[in-house]
Every structure is written in C-alpha cells, then in structure tokens.
C-alpha cells in the first residue's frame, strides 16, 4: 500500500527508507507470530525480568501477554504460577513447573510440551513466589479460562470472582462463554452477570440502556451496586455553562441545595477563587510575624480575642506580608460570574436517565419488601418476648407473684441444654431431650422455691420481689461458679442453620421461624391447660377466690405450687430456645427480665392474650424504632421504655385488662 501510494516527487532515498520500514514491520509481525507458535516459554522469556521480580505494579504486561496468547497451556501455567509451583532455572532463566523429588532436587516440567526436562538441585533453581496482589491479578486472568472449564465448581468460582470484582475486560470472555454453558443454572447466572457487566462497562449506550431496563424488576443488591455508580454526581463550578458534560442539574448559590459558603468553597476547589483565610491561618500568620513583641502594631499579649487578631492581620495584609482577608463582598464578586452544577461521572445522558428511573422503581419495590422484612423481624422478636414472658404471665399474671428469678430460670434452661449437649453429641437428639429436661429442672426449682420462700410471702408482694431477687443473684453467681464467665455454646441442629431467603431484601433465619412455631405451640398448650384441664380449672378458681376454692375441696397450696412450677418450667424451655441464638452466659436472664415484665405489664395481667398483645406491641415497637434509627439499638430500647411508661398512663391495667370481679379489686 505504501509503495502504491508513494508519490513520484519523493526522493529515491526516502522511498527506499519507506520500503525498508514496511519490510521491517512485516518481519516483526512474523517474528511475534512465530513466538506464539513457539509456545509459552518465549513469551515468558520476553517478560523474564518482571516475572522473576513479580511486583503488582509491573507485572501487568506479562500476565496480559500470557492470557491473550490463546495458548491452551496458558491456564495450567498461570495456575502453577499462582500456586507457587513455578520455578526458574538459574542457568538460562527459563521457567518450569517443578515438583519436589528426592532430597533437595526438583523435577522440572516444560509448560509447552508437558514433558519433564529432568531433575535439578535446588541450588540451581529459584522459586517464584508471587505476592497476594500478583496472585489476585493472575486469578483475574485465569477467569476467562475458568469460565469454560469442564469442572462446574470452577466455573461457579470464576463467576463469583467476577461478581466480587467486576471489570470491563471480563465482559467479552463472559459473553463468549454463555452459549457453550451446559448447566442451565449457571447459564442463568452467567446471563445475569453479563447484563450487570453490560450496564457498567459496555461501550454501546443503547445496549447499556437495554440492559438497565431489563434489570429494573430485579431486587438484587448487585443490581443496585451496578446502577448506583452510574448516578453518582459531582459538584462543579465553571466560568460558563459546559457543553460536553452530562449535567445532572444546575445549582444556584444561596439555595438550600448549595449555600453561598459551599459555592465559594467549590470555586476554591476548582482554583477559580483564592482560599478563605481561616482563623487557624490567621493565628499561624500572626505567630510567624511577631516583631518585637508586636504583630502589625498590636501587642502579642492582646491577641487573645478575635477582634484584635483581625486588626493585627489586617495591618499585616496592608503591609503585603500576608494575603488579604476574604470579605463578604469578595465572595459575592467571585460567585457572580460563575455557574455551579452537578455532573454525572458517567458521560452518557441516556444511561444516567435510564439508571435514575430504574433506581427509583427499584427503591419503591425495595421499600415494600423492607417493610415485609421488618414485619417478619418484629414477629420474630415478639415471639421471643412472648416465649420469655409466658412463664411470667402465669406466675405474675395469674398468681400475682412477682418472680425476679424468672430470668435465671431462663438461664438455667439454656444451661440445661448446654449440659445435655455435652453428653449427647447429636444436635437434633440433644435438643429433643433438652426441652423436657429443661422443663423438669426448672419445674423442680420453681416448686422448691414456691414451697420454701414464696408461700410465706403471699400477703407481701414487695417482699416477694426482694426475696426472689436474692435468689436471682445467688443463682446467677452459682451459675458463674459452675460454668465460668465465658459464653457456652448451645448449638442448633444442622437443619435449623441458614435462612429462608425470599429475595435479597427479605430473609428470615430458620431458628427464628422455629421460635415462632414454638411460641405458637406454647400459646395453644397454655390455652388448652387453662381451659380444658382439671389443673387449669383449679388454677382459675384459686386465682379468683382462694377461700371459695378451698371450700370446694381444692387445695390452694398444691395448685399454687403446680402453677408456679408450670410457669417456671415454661421459662426453662424458653431458655433452651433463646440459648439457640443468644450466647449462654450466667447473666442471660438479665437481658430478658425487664422486657418480660414490660410485656406482661403492657399486655395486661392475668390473661394470656394480654401477654401476646404485649409481646406483639413491644416487638413491633422496638423494630419500628430501630428502623427509624438503624444505627442505634440502645436508643431504640430507651425510647421504647419511655413509650411504655407513657403508655401505662393511659392504660394502667394494660392492653387487655380484666374487668369486674376477676380484676381482683
């Protein structure tokens, strides 16, 4: 082509030079092609030095050359390298895969032929140890091979690696690998990832817009992660309205979006105005210009207030030693001739508009789903509180006995579960055994406590509170002495691991579902006991009128004992459930005792439905407050307690108050 176009008027020398250069170019091209046909070793040798030194900053050309060589052995070579199994022969600087042989010798294998080239002493070899930065780059280069790897696990790993670290260069290899993907599931994943990469890195705006629109219905976090960088804006200032930038909106200094001070700072940042002199600058300038105990004519000792400092600084500025102060007039003058605007980092307006719209639609859906998720969370929290409070609803609500050691019964239940697990390693079986065991232990404890202490204090509720508190601190310390202060694990069975994932926004762990079911079972059980059994009948009779019940042949002492035992036993079972997700420590009960009392008090005493309503209200309230201020669960608890204190003002007897004679007064 050069020869044909060469104009006649050029001198012969010039013509010859061009011819020579052309020939040289062709020769070079041939040489490169030959080098690739010659296998990997020549490429490696081309980059011998940087491979041998292998630093993250310099290694890129070498890895690129290997990855784009198109040689099938490149993948194995890169993997060997990343696994630190590539060695260099010191005599000629060639690279080989090495395998340890007898003694201190290594068997070297050529990458291209796959044949052994013999064993060498370690002293003649140098192992290449790429650091983690280089290994990460090798891993990225390997992705394109791995995407078509026959092993499904490797293809999945490659996909995950792209997800973690998306990159425009990976788009083409990913697209190429989709059609050949045999696994339907992976194919879907690959397609999705391809869409996401298209949004971020495709060169064609229309394709990106199409991809954005296609992903609008997707709630995935990765979709939002792909869209968000597109709508990132940056505030800028310029002398006049820019034409080639993707402007999001114009800003007027002095509006709520951009205060005049911020606007001026923006000008300073863009080198369109001189920086303001801060009070710090003034102090440093003054300190630097002390002259015979005076600065600008003001004695140093007087410089302890802003007015004197300004005066001194103004004197210095007049003398020209320091830059002048920026006055309000200066700021106004600087702001006037400039325009302020926000630009997208993304240059294409179609893409940003599409992304903006897509994000809005997604946000709405995410909001709806978050509400659902929050509701599930609240229900789960409510069932935990219900579970913790149901025993208390019996002892406090039905019997009117306040039991400060209730939290310790929960703790004992959890420790019972822990001890059972020490003897029965199978988690499922151990939980099944732990539940009745915990009931038995705490039931016995409750009965003993009722017999020994509470029985004598029925007429003095405040003293019951104190006595049971004494038991509570003794039990807590006892547990500390036996089990130590560190948290003990109570492991949930394997089938309770994981979570029920509806989508990227809504998910709930199986343990929480199990606790919800448990709470439901307890509710039904309790209703059944109180309404359908002899004990329940006697319990209600003794609650309403112990003397009358006594004269009907019911033994109130026995009924009280059994009722208290029942409440305590249920606390023990709740302890096993709570121990599954919380850490089992000796002060586990402390975390639940106040909430449990709140639940019973808010719900209304003497009624299981009250406990349910109370737990529901507290659970939803706490989650609701946490949602408003997600960073701070402590504040959420504080506000909730304040709310409860105020709530008690309006319904002193709780949500569901007993009426008439059953109310007891």
């Amino acid at each position, binding site marked *: 082509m050069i020869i044909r176009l060469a104009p006649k008027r050029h001198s012969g020398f010039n013509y010859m030079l061009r011819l020579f250069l052309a020939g040289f170019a062709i020769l070079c091209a041939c040489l490169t092609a030959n080098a690739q046909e010659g296998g990997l070793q020549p490429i490696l040798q081309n980059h011998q030095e940087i491979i041998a030194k292998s630093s993250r900053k310099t290694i890129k050309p070498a890895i690129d050359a290997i990855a784009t060589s198109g040689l099938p052995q490149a993948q194995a070579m890169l993997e060997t390298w990343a696994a630190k199994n590539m060695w260099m022969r010191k005599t000629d600087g060639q690279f080989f895969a090495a395998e340890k042989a007898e003694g201190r010798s290594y068997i070297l294998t050529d990458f291209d032929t796959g044949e052994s080239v013999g064993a060498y002493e370690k002293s003649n070899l140098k192992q290449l140890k790429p650091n983690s930065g280089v290994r990460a780059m090798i891993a990225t280069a390997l992705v394109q091979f791995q995407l078509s790897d026959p092993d499904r696990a490797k293809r999945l790993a490659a996909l995950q690696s792209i997800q973690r670290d998306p990159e425009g260069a990976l788009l083409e290899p990913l697209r190429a690998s989709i059609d050949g993907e045999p696994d339907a599931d992976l194919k879907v994943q690959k397609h999705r990832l391809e869409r996401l990469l298209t949004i971020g890195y495709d060169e064609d705006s229309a394709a990106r817009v199409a991809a954005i629109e296609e992903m609008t219905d997707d709630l995935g976090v990765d979709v939002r992660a792909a869209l968000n960088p597109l709508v990132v804006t940056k505030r800028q200032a310029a002398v006049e309205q820019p034409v080639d930038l993707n402007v999001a909106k114009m800003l007027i200094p002095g509006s709520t979006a951009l205060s005049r001070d911020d606007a001026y700072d923006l000008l300073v940042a863009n080198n369109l105005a001189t920086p303001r002199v801060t009070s710090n600058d003034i*102090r440093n300038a003054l300190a630097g210009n002390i002259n015979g105990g005076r600065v600008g004519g003001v004695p140093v000792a007087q410089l302890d207030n802003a007015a004197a400092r300004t005066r001194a600084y103004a004197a210095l500025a007049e003398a020209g030693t320091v830059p002048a102060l920026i006055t309000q007039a200066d700021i106004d003058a600087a702001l006037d001739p400039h325009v302020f605007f926000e630009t997208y980092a993304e240059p294409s307006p179609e893409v940003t508009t599409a992304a903006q719209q897509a994000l809005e639609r997604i946000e709405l859906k995410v909001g709806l789903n978050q509400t659902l998720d929050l509701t599930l969370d609240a229900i789960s929290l409510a069932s935990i509180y219900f579970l913790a409070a149901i025993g208390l609803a019996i002892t406090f609500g039905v019997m009117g006995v306040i039991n400060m050691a209730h939290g310790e019964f929960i703790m004992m239940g959890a420790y019972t579960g822990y001890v059972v697990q020490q003897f029965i390693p199978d988690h499922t079986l151990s939980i099944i055994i732990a539940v009745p065991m915990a009931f038995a232990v705490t039931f016995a404890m409750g009965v003993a406590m009722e017999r020994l202490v509470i029985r004598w204090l029925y007429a003095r509720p*405040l003293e019951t509170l104190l006595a049971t508190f004494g038991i509570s601190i*003794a039990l807590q310390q006892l547990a500390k*002495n036996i089990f130590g202060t560190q948290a003990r694990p109570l492991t949930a069975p394997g089938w309770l691991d994981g979570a029920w994932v509806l989508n990227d926004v809504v998910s709930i762990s199986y343990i929480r579902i199990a606790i919800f079911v448990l709470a439901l079972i307890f509710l039904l059980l309790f209703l059944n006991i109180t309404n359908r059994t002899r004990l329940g009948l006697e319990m209600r009779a003794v609650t309403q009128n112990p003397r009358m019940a006594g004269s009907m042949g019911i033994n109130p002492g026995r009924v009280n004992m059994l009722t208290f035992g029942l409440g305590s036993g249920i606390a023990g079972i709740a302890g096993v459930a709570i121990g599954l997700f919380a850490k089992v420590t000796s002060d586990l009960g402390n975390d639940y005792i106040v909430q449990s009392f709140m639940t019973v*008090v808010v719900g209304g005493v003497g009624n299981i439905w009250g406990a349910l309503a109370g737990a529901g209200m507290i659970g939803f309230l706490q989650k609701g407050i946490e949602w408003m201020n997600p960073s701070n669960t*402590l504040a959420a608890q504080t506000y909730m*307690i304040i709310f409860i*204190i105020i709530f008690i003002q309006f319904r002193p007897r709780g949500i569901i108050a007993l009426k008439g004679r059953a109310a007891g007064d």
Partner: protein
Amino acid sequence: MDHSFIAKNPSVLVFLTILSLFTLMVTVLSEGFGIGVISTSFVKTLGKTLCLCLIAVAMDLVWGFTGILSLGHFAFFGLGGYMIGMWLMYERTRLIVVESLAQAEIPPTPAEVVDAIGNQIFGVVGSSDFPLIWAFSDSLFLQLALVVLVPGLLALIFGWLAFRSRVTGVYLSILTQAMTLALALYLFQNDSGLRGNNGLSGLQNLPGVTAGQDMVSIWFLWASALALGLGYLLAAWIVSGKFGSVIRGIRDNEARVRFLGYSVEVYKLAVFSLTACIAAIAGALYYPQAGIINPEEMAPIASIYLAVWVAIGGRGRLYGAVIGAAFVSLLSSWFTGGQAPDIPLGFYAIKWVDWWQVLLGVSFVLVTLFAPQGIGGLFDLWANRRPLDRHGANLGPDDGALREKEATE
C-alpha cells in the same frame, strides 16, 4: 422546738454523736491529718460508705416509711455524680489546656480554649463539640444547682406520671426499674453527650487544688459525714412530724389515707422527689471519691442492692438503713477484695470472691423470710421493746398489712 425534737428522738442525738466520733477517729488515724494508721484508699472507702449510708437513708424514707419500693434511686445517685463530674472534668481539662496553650506564641482566644477542651474530653467518642447538656459545665455554682435540679426534676416528672395514674406496688417497682434501665442504656450511647461507656474519669483530682489525695480524701470524708448528718437530721425531722404520720399511713393503707382527705399523690411525689435530691447529693459526693463514673453504675441491679441494704439493716427506722448500708457494703468490699480467708473443705475450697454473692443472696432471702426487721431489730431486743400481743389479729385491715406474726418476729 428544736430541743423538743431532739428530746423526742434521742436516737438522732446518739447517731450524730457516733457519726462525729467516727469522723474524728478516722481523721486522727488518717495519713493526711493524723498518725497514718488508715491508708488513704481506706479513708476513701469509708467516705464512699458514708455516701452510701446517705442514699440508704433516702431509700428508707421512700420505701421504709412511704412504702414505695423504688428501684430507681441509684439512677438519681448516678445523675448527681454525672452533674458534678461534668464540672470537675471540664474545669480540670480547662486548666491543663490553658497551661499547654500558654506555651504558644499567640495567646489563645476563648473559643480556641473551649475547642481544645472539647477535643480533650470528647476525643474518646470521636467528637469534639460540646453537646447542649454541657452548657453550664464551666460554672461550679450552676452545676451544683443541677446536681439537685436534674434528678429532682426527673423524679418529679416520673413520679407525677406514675402516681397520678395510681401505679402502685410491684408495678411501680418495675416501672422505676425500667426508668433506670432506660437511663443507663441511654447514657451507654456515645452520642448521649456524656462519653458513652467511657463515662467521666479523673474526678478525684480537684481542679486548682494542690493538696495531695491524702488530704482531699479527708475533706471528702468530712463533707460526706456532714451530708449524712444533715440528711439524717432532715429525714428524722420529716418522719417525726405530722408529715411522717401521713406517709406512714400511706404505706399501711393508701386508700384509707386518701379517703381521710389527704392528697396521697402530693405526699408521695414530695417524698419521691426529695429522696431523689438526697440521693443525688450522695452521688455528687461519692463519685469524686471513686474517681470515675460510667453508666454501668446506674444499672438496675445497683438500685436493687440498695433495697437489699435497707432490708438487711431494717427498714422503717433510719439508723437501720445506715447500719445496713455500712455493714453490707463494707462486708462486700471485704469479701470481694480477696481479704476474707478461703474455707477449705478438703475436696473444694470456698473462695469468697466467688461465693460472696451466693451468701448475700441466700442471707437476703433468710432476712426477708425470718427477720423483716433486719439488723435494726436487734436494738429492740436490746432495749427490750416487745410488740404488744394482739392474739393473732392483723395490725392493719388489709391483706397487705403487717401481720402480727411478722411484726413480732
């Protein structure tokens, strides 16, 4: 009038005499002013114990005499400590900051000083600005006023809300406990403005005072003893008059007092707020001796221990509360301080550090069950003052009233 008050209450005179003798004795034995038999740290322990006795008197007033089992008085105690701690910390930091800024070439402006103090104090919670609640921290007088005003006002609002809706008995106890928990949780946050769980520290250093801790500890002992004496006198005066009769009436039968035409809520509110103020003063004296205050101190458990002290000492009599607080808290520091000898059982040695709480809990249950009069009841035995034999009739008309069996035990 005063003469007749003392004559009617000889125990007050006895108490004040013992208190002064005790203070004098500690002063003589101390390192700062005397022969140095008692170490400075023990003087501080004694001074702190006097503060605990003062809050126990307050607790006795509200629980033993009015029948309100408040589980929130330690919150007021802590608030008082925080209020004085704010001034101590501000002023001390200011002195340090001014001294270091004086080294600079240019004298600092007031704004620079305040900024530097803010940086010093709030650096640990990643902030440097003064929150609104520190607005008066530069003035000792205002902070001293706040020591009484803040807890008093909190007690007034909380009490008004609780008493007007007729929350009584265990409900009220739980509600006060919830209030304490809410306050402690709130203070645990870093953005509460009181340095979160770091609390306020370095309170033992009085700003501008060059005397050593051995002297300062004695000053605080005197101040605590004075506060306890005055608090005791005030409490004794309150319970001895007509006001005292009404609050005892409220304790024994609230409804009857109401039907007699007394405004029960006002009486309860007055006692609740007054005792909150006394508790706050006790806290304001306690924490400069302790040196550090953090929200952990205000946890609900502390208030329950307060009830334990008063119950063990004997509620319904002021000296009982003092004895209980002094006895249990000193015993507790003796046991948990590792000074008590272990009891070897051959197969197991009982270490009191681990077992003290168990002993305390169990003995508390036993006291509640078998000796509702507490340690103070021993004085009745000594004075041979036996209750009247009522042949099994209750002392009051209601189920909740004191039974004869309990009163005589």
